[in-house]
């Protein structure tokens, strides 16, 4: 099966829930397990939150989310035109946060890595960041 979607939303924190709910609804067609569904919701939530907090520094901007299904693999790309990441290696380190005084746990990338099969981060400082992550869903035994 093949399918795709695109969602563009303003970067306000109210939209985080909307974005992850849409991403979860997008793959319902594949009949995922509850665990897969909550893993994907969490990973998308982390990526969108990063775009809003770090990419746009909680200022106005647009977050673009695309989803693609090929067979039983789902791929999401979360893109912002914010400030970008200077040092991707460092940002991906567990417990590292760019906002130490903002009550952030620094676990965003670790969670995305743990919950998805692949995670790719492309970023240009001053231009923005795109996070591509994919996951192959288990075959249905029903």
């Amino acid at each position: 099966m093949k399918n795709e979607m695109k969602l563009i939303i303003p970067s306000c924190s109210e939209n985080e829930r909307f974005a992850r709910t849409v991403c979860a609804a997008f793959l319902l067609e594949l009949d995922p397990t509850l665990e897969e569904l909550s893993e994907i919701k969490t990973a998308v939530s982390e990526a969108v939150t990063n775009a809003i907090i770090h990419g746009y520094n909680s200022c106005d901007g647009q977050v673009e989310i695309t989803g693609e299904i090929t067979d039983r693999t789902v791929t999401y790309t979360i893109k912002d035109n914010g400030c970008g990441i200077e040092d991707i290696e460092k940002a991906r380190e567990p417990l590292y946060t760019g906002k130490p005084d903002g009550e952030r746990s620094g676990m965003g990338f670790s969670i995305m890595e743990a919950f998805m099969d692949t995670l790719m981060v492309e970023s240009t400082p001053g231009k923005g960041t795109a996070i591509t992550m994919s996951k192959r869903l288990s075959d249905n035994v029903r």
Partner: protein
Amino acid sequence: MSDTFFRSTKAYKFHQRTFISVRRKMVLEALERIRFKMEVTYIPKHRLILVRVTGEIDHHSAESIRRVTEKEIRRTSAINIAFDFGSVTFMDSSGIGMIIGRYKTASSLGGSVIVFDANEQVMRLMDMSGLSRLVIISDTMQKGITAMKKLRGVNV
């Protein structure tokens, strides 16, 4: 019977009104289950504020939990915070950050943080982040309070 005729009958209007209201009620109930809500109770006996959270905890809702909890801590003489996560349906790393923040507040006052009745998804996230080294995680509030008293060396 033609469709237009049926649509003009009382029976149809009744059917439609009932059907729409039932469907509307179902949608509202479903929304109610995921809508973010919180309820704060002060329990003087344990110098504890109990925060009952309903819905999804993300960057947006974690911010309101932080604001309300900090305000209650300042207003009352509570030093401990207990989070009832029984109705939390989703949490991401913003929730972890928020709990660590409350741990900092409570421990600066000499108190503790308890998180109880969390679902599997939330438990998994808390395990991943090693939160159990900082806060008391239990399945009921009573067990959490017992663990808290033990931590202080009070016999129960």
